[in-house]
């Protein structure tokens, strides 16, 4: 890895705006996330957190401004092209391959990064390294005993774990997780946090999260988004003490 690449932030947003018709959802967001950082984006409902994810990952085009991933502009790139830059995301509403087995789900997450592309001459059963990698990841996700089950039949928490598994399978350096613990029980949240912590080791993690214990437990830095604008972006301690944040967001939680 060259030093220039190291210096470039993992993700940089400059004056990013997103309008749907006349409604402006994201209003001039500037954000720089450096390599190896665990970054949380918080904010009240409708603040535009998921929209921001959709812009970064290329699901929606931006209306104005610029986004760079590893110093490369993502303008006019399709989602799969952004993914190939080493950015992978999960979805708030579970997005897996329901009619394929759990193992196949993970293997699909691995295929492109392992260079198989659109191959129709390699037999998957013979790809030892690929299958071992998929099984190892299943082990980490604690889904090994569900290996041959159709993904659509998993429990909710298991599907969320699989969602994270598909996201990280390709070995992306930048991982975007959209509310990974939403709808989970306490114990499920705990194991999800442990999982996220271990899989994001040495990588750049950006996550949208509502559970404050998860946010303050995991994040190195927190960005607060309110009505499509960044009102603060700082270390957790500073965010806790920030008056504007307390008023706009944390205050409403305390009340």
């Amino acid at each position, binding site marked *: 890895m060259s030093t220039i690449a190291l210096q470039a932030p993992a993700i940089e947003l400059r004056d990013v705006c997103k309008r749907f018709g006349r409604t402006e959802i994201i209003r001039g967001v500037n954000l720089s996330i450096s390599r190896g950082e665990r970054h949380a984006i918080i904010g009240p409902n409708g603040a535009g957190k998921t929209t921001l994810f959709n812009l970064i*990952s290329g*699901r929606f085009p931006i209306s104005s401004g610029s986004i760079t991933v590893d110093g490369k502009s993502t303008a006019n790139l*399709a*989602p*799969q092209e952004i*993914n*190939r830059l080493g950015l*992978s*995301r999960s*979805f708030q509403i579970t*997005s*897996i*391959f*329901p*009619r*394929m087995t759990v193992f*196949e789900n993970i*293997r*699909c*997450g691995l*295929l*492109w*990064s392992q260079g*198989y*592309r*659109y*191959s*129709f*001459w*390699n*037999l*998957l*059963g013979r790809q030892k390294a690929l299958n071992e990698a998929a099984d190892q990841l299943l082990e980490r996700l604690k889904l090994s005993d569900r290996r041959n089950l159709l993904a659509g039949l998993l429990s909710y928490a298991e599907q969320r774990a699989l969602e994270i598994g*598909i*996201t990280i*399978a*390709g070995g992306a350096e930048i991982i975007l997780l959209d509310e990974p613990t939403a709808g989970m029980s306490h114990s499920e949240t705990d194991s999800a946090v442990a999982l996220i912590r271990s899989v994001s080791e040495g990588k750049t993690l950006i996550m949208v999260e509502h559970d404050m214990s998860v946010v303050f437990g995991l994040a190195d830095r927190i960005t607060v988004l309110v009505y499509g604008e960044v009102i603060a972006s700082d270390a957790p301690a500073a965010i806790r003490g920030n008056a504007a944040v307390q008023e706009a967001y944390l205050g409403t939680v305390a009340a």
Partner: protein
Amino acid sequence: MTLLRRHWPSYLPWLLAFVILLAIPFLFYDWGKGRHSGFVLTLMSEIGVMAIFALSYNMLMGQAGLLSFGHAVLLGMGAYCAAHVVLLVKAGTIWLPTELVPLAGGLGGLFFGFVFGWLVTKQRATAFAMITMGLGELVSSAALMFMGFFGGEGGISIDRVMDTSLVGVKYTSPWQVYCLLLVWAFIAAVLMKLQTQTPLGSIANATRDNFERAQFVGYDPRMVRLYQFALSGFFAGIGGGLYVLIYEIVTFDTVSAGKSANALLAVYIGGAGGFFGPILGTIVVVLLQSGVSLLSNAWLLYVGILFIVMVMYAPGGLIGLLFMHMPIWRAGRMRELLLPYARAFPPALIVLLGFVLLVELASFTTIGAAQGKKFSIGGHLIDTTAPLPWVIALAALVLGALWLRREARGFRERWDAVTEAIKLKGAMS
């Protein structure tokens, strides 16, 4: 069962199926005259071609979730290409063994699969279905306009007897062609089966399930659709090449919407979920088409009704119904279903007979009368204008249905109890 399978090499079932299919025509062999039954050979050849066609269709529908209404275009273009290649070989312009004519069809199908695929795979779901339908119409009308390539309404006739065989066979008899067909059908089926286990095959499943997620693991769903479509064209084209060798003529009928519908019917009736579903469906559809059509004017109605019933009550098709029994079979509890099945059989038979009688009565009073045919059962002439047969048919249908409903309830209870018990046992172990 599992024990046996463990010791079986994976190709053994294929080998077994091949031998059985090779042997079946001999069951109808006329030993007195020393020749095969032409009808059986034609029927089985038709099944072979249509099975390849249906399997290639399932590469789109089952594997990639793409509902095409114009798949016959690929079969037909493959057939036309193969026909022209045969003409060229005959003219001495090129040299190609007869055995490789289907491959020429396949390459033609691949080429047109790529070209047409480029157009149609830009979209998915309903838009894809509509574009393929338009494409089918387009090629059908082109087939009547461009005489040079398509030969107009008369199509292109060939003579399959060439002197270029690799194994010294002239292919003068349907039996020889059937053997060639069987070899190619197996090559195509094995390759298609293997394709489902490749990265492309797996990602095709992924785009079927959730095309957006596939994008976020690095794949362009459009390219997945395109390659899958082109490969499907290759196999449909092989079917086309075989079609030419069997019938020695190819007309615009091969690219028509009716042919496309055939593949769709076979896949739906057989089931898109399992690899062998389309083959089962093809057997049923071709038997109805070629067998029942000899007996009844209303054969198309039976196909339609079967299609509707399957879509409504067994969306997984015949293969889906078989799969449903697998856990029970494995648990060794099929015996417990024997009695409920036996009890449901008589009312089901009565409903079926009542329905068939009703349809045939109607068909004989209309089309049959126009053709001057008389309706007779076991030598007894039936007066289709008298009320009695109608009353009997209706009564059988209604009473049978009521009885069947009663038995079905008992059957369902038994079924649920057995599957529940198996699930519980599975969860505990």
